[in-house]
């Protein structure tokens, strides 16, 4: 018959009584010590294993407790209890290297899944629920604040402005019944040659870009920005940013450098993915208009030459590098 030594505490006083615990054949457990002999059915006892190297604890009905020296055979009697599986799994993970690695992988997997799929899906859902009128108001507010700071009214001649507007109409015509685009021309020395897409299908093109690009190249740039608008990238980017702030804040607390870095890196990755999608959209539009993709690549090169080549690794950037964009676009 198995015997397990231990210390019994009756819950009434702090006295420690040395005892032996003896599991009997008929599913009863015998507790024997100095002037003490108790017997209880196994089903009435509760087994507990604290984290770390601690002696297991056997809770006796009526508030008694035995700290028992067990080699695993006593624990086996309680293996089938509800909750024992989960407790055992946690204990295993906490005491085996494989468990720690597994838990870490699970954490990395979950976070990756949330960042790659969960958060964008959530943002898409929220964006879809936002009415177009609200989105447009949002875009107008952004434009109004940009008009205060880096933007000035366009200084392009009327005819040139009309030419750009015609290009936008040609892009709209490739997707009948699609979104109505609103073109805003602005002059800005700080931004230079650039084009951007704001919420509410507002495309902003700077004078410098119009001067730099040929008509064909301008068409390609506008098609790229129209791609952003078509997929509501600006709005989604805002929603994703807020969701990211909430999610990272929930786990690691707000306003710390780690949250800032995480938000920056993940936000950049989202932005680069959007750029690739807009690139594909631009090439599709050019194909529909029976144009070659060449102007799209040549304007990318021109812009890069003007801004100076950067040697910064791509994960620090909101836009992918030109070779990467061209390779991806050529592949599609």
């Amino acid at each position, binding site marked *: 018959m198995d015997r397990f030594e231990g210390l019994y505490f009756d819950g009434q006083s702090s006295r420690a009584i040395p005892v032996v615990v003896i599991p009997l054949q008929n599913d009863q457990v015998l507790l024997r010590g100095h002037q003490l002999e108790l017997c209880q059915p196994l089903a009435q006892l509760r087994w507990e294993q604290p984290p770390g190297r601690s002696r297991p604890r056997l809770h006796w009905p009526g508030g008694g407790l035995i700290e028992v020296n067990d080699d695993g055979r006593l624990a086996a009697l309680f293996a089938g209890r509800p909750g024992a599986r989960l407790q055992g799994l946690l204990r295993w993970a906490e005491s085996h290297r494989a468990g*720690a690695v597994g838990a870490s992988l699970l954490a990395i997997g979950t976070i990756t899944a949330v960042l790659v799929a969960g958060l964008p899906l959530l943002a898409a859902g929220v964006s879809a629920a936002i009415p177009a009128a609200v989105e447009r108001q949002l875009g107008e507010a952004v434009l109004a604040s940009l008009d205060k700071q880096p933007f000035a009214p366009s200084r392009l001649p009327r005819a040139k402005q009309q030419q750009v507007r015609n290009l936008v109409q040609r892009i709209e015509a490739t997707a009948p019944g699609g979104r109505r685009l609103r073109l805003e021309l602005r002059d800005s020395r700080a931004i230079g040659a650039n084009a951007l897409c704001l919420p509410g299908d507002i495309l902003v093109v700077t004078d410098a870009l119009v001067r730099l690009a040929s008509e064909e190249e301008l068409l390609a740039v506008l098609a790229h920005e129209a791609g952003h608008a078509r997929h509501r990238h600006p709005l989604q980017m805002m929603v994703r940013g807020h969701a990211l702030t909430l999610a990272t804040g929930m786990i690691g607390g707000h306003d710390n450098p780690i949250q800032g870095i995480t938000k920056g890196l993940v936000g950049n990755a989202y932005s680069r993915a959007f750029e690739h999608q807009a690139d594909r959209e631009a090439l599709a539009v050019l194909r529909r208009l029976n144009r070659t993709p060449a102007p799209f690549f040549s304007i990318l090169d021109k812009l890069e030459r003007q801004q100076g080549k950067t040697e910064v690794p791509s994960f620090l950037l909101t836009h992918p590098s030109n070779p990467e964009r061209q390779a991806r676009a050529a592949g599609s």
Partner: protein
Amino acid sequence: MTRLEAVARSDEDAQGKQESIAVKFSGRTGEYFQIWLVNTALTLASLGLYMPWARMRTRRYFLGQIRLQESGLEYQANPQAMFLGWGVIGAGFTLLSSFGDLLTTGLTSIVQPLIKANWILPLLSAGVVGVILLIQLGALSWLLVQSIRYNSSKTSFRNLRFGFGSVEARFRLWKEIVILLVLRFLVPISLGLLQPYVAWRWRRFLIRHRRFGTTPFAFTAKPSDFRRLHLRALPLLFPAIAIIATLLLSVALAIRTPGVTSPSLIPSEILTVLALASIPLLLVWSCWLEARAAILTWRCTHLGELRFACAWRARDLIRLRLQHGLALVFSLGLAWPWVRIRETRYRLQRISVSPATALDGFLAGEQERISALAEGSFAMDDAMDGLIDFSL
């Protein structure tokens, strides 16, 4: 045998009867690192939902590794209830602050047409913010009391539970803690003069309301003991005090005489030397005070017949603080489990209990039920554990 020898012999005999037991801490870095890693990973994987469980397992691990004659301490909180408690408290505070915004807007729209004065709106919002802050402070201090009570009642040793205060006395405890919080707030205003009294009163609060089974803890130190301690440590602060005094005087002079932009009472070289000297001295000061206050506190803490002794040394604390600070910086925080185990081991293993025979004599009292909602203020309770270095 001379008379002197006889006295020495009888002293030794008395000490033999008063056999003391050293507290042991059996936590290991590798073991805790695993538990910490799993806890962190599962908390991340569950997007924070596992946090109460992680917290409970950590606490159980640390308390379980504190051994007095083989038996460890046990912590038996209910994580489900803690989880709910956190949710309710989080929601409560969020609601309260948005209610404040709403109240400000509402009052503004009522008051604005009535009183046309520029100062009324800032006054109004300041008033609302003040009221909300008072409510929050009241709620937080209440949660703090309940949190200490909850954690205490969930901790046991040799199958006997600890306790803190009683249901009937909980409002008195609340009053006491509000007074303590106000006093703490006043410490900087009093230029530190209140510090010894506050240190004494915190310790008295946390010790004399605690009990093991039915036996209450007692705290026999007087405020004057702490005052003496702080006075003895004061010379270590002289360079820092000199710098602060110089800066204050310079500001005062600059206000008095508008023409002078930077009056230098003390040459800047001396100021630099003082500044360089005051940093290590501040470290020595805080460690010396910490060690001596702990020794005093444990010496003046009784539990029935049980006496405690603490043998912390300032130089050990300084060494640990330097080592741990460097380790944390260079490991980017990954050394945290190592630091925590080492710190806890030092602090606990230098505490001893005597006489051994008294350990058997405690009796159980009525068990009380305290809502786990109180666990919501967990972070504060932890901060407090650190504050008073009282791990029971």
